[in-house]
């Protein structure tokens, strides 16, 4: 089912890009590469690694392994509208219905044989313990040994060295399972491509800060977190270049992502992955643009091709998703100022203890920089718990509040 879905997505998207080559198509190119990644994962013709969110995908790419974080599958199942049966499958097996929908969906998919059996499994202790538990469950289901990257929470030279050494062990772990030795030239080439994509992504984020923004409610959804999967590849460079070109042209022509942009929003944590009318409501009724997602504009220093593991370890350790909430809060406050946001939307992904547990701190932190927050109660994957009317009321009241009182404090 998933292979056919990705194949159809690829062909439809390719046809659209060919038919309208001069229309803005960065998002379509992004979708096309996602479809191609899905095909590689499900075709049975490639070495596959199921990973945690902050695995070094550019390194795995250099080893010719198609790698992906498992939450991607949960998001894809949600976007196809079929996630319910997989959630039920995991719940029937005893997983609590109020835990993270991404992980329940993935576990259900594995139980139903809808996840390809991987060659390699690499878990990460960041960003959440739920993800690690899901990976351990999957490893048992697939009868695979699990390699765990233990990501330290503090940015010290000892921590960086500790994680960098684990990457070397990880490469040996991968190499032992797929055969062959590590190709240093291939790794260097991957790092060069990863750095180029990074430079372009920084440019894309800089352009999105423009007032009015070339970003609308959807164009950069899932961008930063999924782009990690394309680091080290030509596809990653091409996607980022397409966004940069498109945004530059829009700004040059005085176009904004949302016509007559009136409200600029920061979207916290995850997007709602299934089809829903809330983004269109924001755009059409309130001329509100989501100019930045918390999971975008997470940047890092360029990777040193001569010492890649140290640089990659720093990249991972310094991600705002790692360590104390204050690190995440600093990131969110920085984005709020840079992107000149009027308000923030926090979906509080229901099963995510990290997301819901930090809700009060985040609301207080954004209040400090004058940014009001509306909290939604939604599982970003579980369509069965989507109370559209309730969420509409919260969002619309928030928009009314922002429109009538620009100095409002929170919601």
């Amino acid at each position, binding site marked *: 089912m998933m292979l056919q879905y990705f194949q159809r997505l690829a062909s439809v998207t390719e046809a659209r890009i060919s038919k309208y080559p001069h229309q803005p198509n960065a998002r379509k190119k992004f979708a096309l590469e996602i479809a191609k990644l899905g095909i590689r994962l499900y075709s049975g013709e490639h070495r596959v690694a199921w990973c945690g969110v902050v695995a070094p995908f550019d390194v795995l790419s250099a080893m010719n392994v198609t790698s992906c974080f498992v939450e991607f599958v949960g998001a894809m199942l949600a976007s196809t509208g079929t996630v319910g049966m997989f959630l039920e499958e995991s719940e029937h097996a005893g997983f609590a219905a109020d835990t993270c929908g991404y992980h329940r969906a993935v576990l259900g998919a594995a139980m139903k044989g809808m996840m390809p059996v991987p060659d390699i499994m690499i878990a990460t202790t960041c960003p959440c313990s739920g993800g690690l538990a899901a990976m351990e469950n999957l490893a048992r289901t697939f009868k695979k040994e699990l390699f765990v990257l233990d990501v330290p929470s503090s940015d010290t030279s000892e921590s960086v060295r500790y994680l960098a050494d684990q990457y070397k062990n990880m490469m040996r772990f991968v190499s032992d399972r797929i055969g062959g030795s590590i190709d240093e030239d291939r790794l260097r080439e991957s790092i060069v491509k990863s750095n180029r994509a990074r430079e372009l992504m920084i440019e894309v984020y800089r352009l999105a800060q423009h007032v009015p923004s070339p970003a609308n409610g959807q164009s950069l959804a899932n961008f930063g977190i999924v782009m990690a999967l394309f680091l080290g590849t030509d596809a990653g460079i091409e996607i980022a270049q397409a966004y940069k070109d498109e945004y530059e042209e829009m700004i040059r022509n005085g176009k904004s992502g949302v016509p007559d942009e009136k409200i600029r929003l920061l979207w916290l944590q995850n997007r709602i992955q299934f089809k829903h009318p809330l983004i269109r409501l924001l755009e059409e009724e309130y001329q509100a643009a989501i100019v930045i997602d918390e999971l975008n504009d997470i940047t890092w220093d360029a990777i040193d091709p001569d010492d890649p593991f140290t640089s990659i370890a720093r990249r991972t350790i310094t991600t705002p998703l790692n360590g104390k909430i204050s690190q995440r809060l600093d990131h969110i406050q920085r984005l709020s100022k840079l992107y000149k946001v009027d308000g923030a939307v926090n979906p509080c992904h*229901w099963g995510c203890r990290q997301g819901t547990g930090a809700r009060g701190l985040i609301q207080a932190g954004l209040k400090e920089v004058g940014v*009001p927050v509306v*909290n939604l*109660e939604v599982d970003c994957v579980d369509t069965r*718990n989507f*109370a559209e*009317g*309730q969420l509409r*009321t*919260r969002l*619309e*009241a928030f928009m*009314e*509040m922002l429109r*009538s*009182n620009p*100095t*409002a*404090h*929170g*919601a």
Partner: protein
Amino acid sequence: MYYLGVDLGSLSCDAVLLDHDGGVLASSVVLTGARNREAIAKATDAVLRLAGITEDQIRATVSTGYGRDRVEKRLAAVTEITCHARGIKSLFGGAQILIDIGGQDSKAVRLDPNGQVIDFAMNDKCAAGTGRFLEAMARALQVDIEELADLDLGASGNVTLSSMCTVFAESEVVSLIADGVEVREIVSGLNRAIASRIVALVRRVAPMSNGLSIAMSGGVAHNSGVVRALSQAFETAISVPPKPDTVGALGAALIAREKYARQS
């Protein structure tokens, strides 16, 4: 010239009709039931009849409530948070906190001196402590919902409910009755449990609510027992208008009048 506000809620559909100067001419409350449009027509017909005017004399209508998009011939649809805030401000000009407990949700709204919403919080994904909750408890106690209002009088307050889940709380109430606990003690426990949830909601918009002026709207404000429990919890009097369930419709009608004036 007349202005109409219609609040289509989950339990009741309310309408308020204003005259040219913003004075209230008539108000109505009907059960929403399963047919939204019938409820809207009934509530509207009632205020037209009471005021002795015809529909074509209405210059502007603003709708609110969960079914706000189902009201035809509306100038605008505005959320109940904004409408209740606008309505309560016209009734209690000094209100700084508004508590609105309706049929299926509860809200705490922080108001600025001009009556603008500067913060709000709503119940999380659960209808505990709302009108539906009280309906279920009245059913468990085998009393009419209106009777709940004074059933707590004289209670010592020594019964605490351990669950606010509507289903579990109903079971708990049945168990307490079976154990011979006095009805007034059970009702007092229910009211205090609702108040406790509302206090938490208000803290989200006003961490220090001491000294702030609090008003209440929504159908549950008819329940004087809940209002008493809230007053005790906040250690201050709660201002309740005579027709708390029509505050949203009143706010909608006031907004209709303002919007029409701006457009003309």
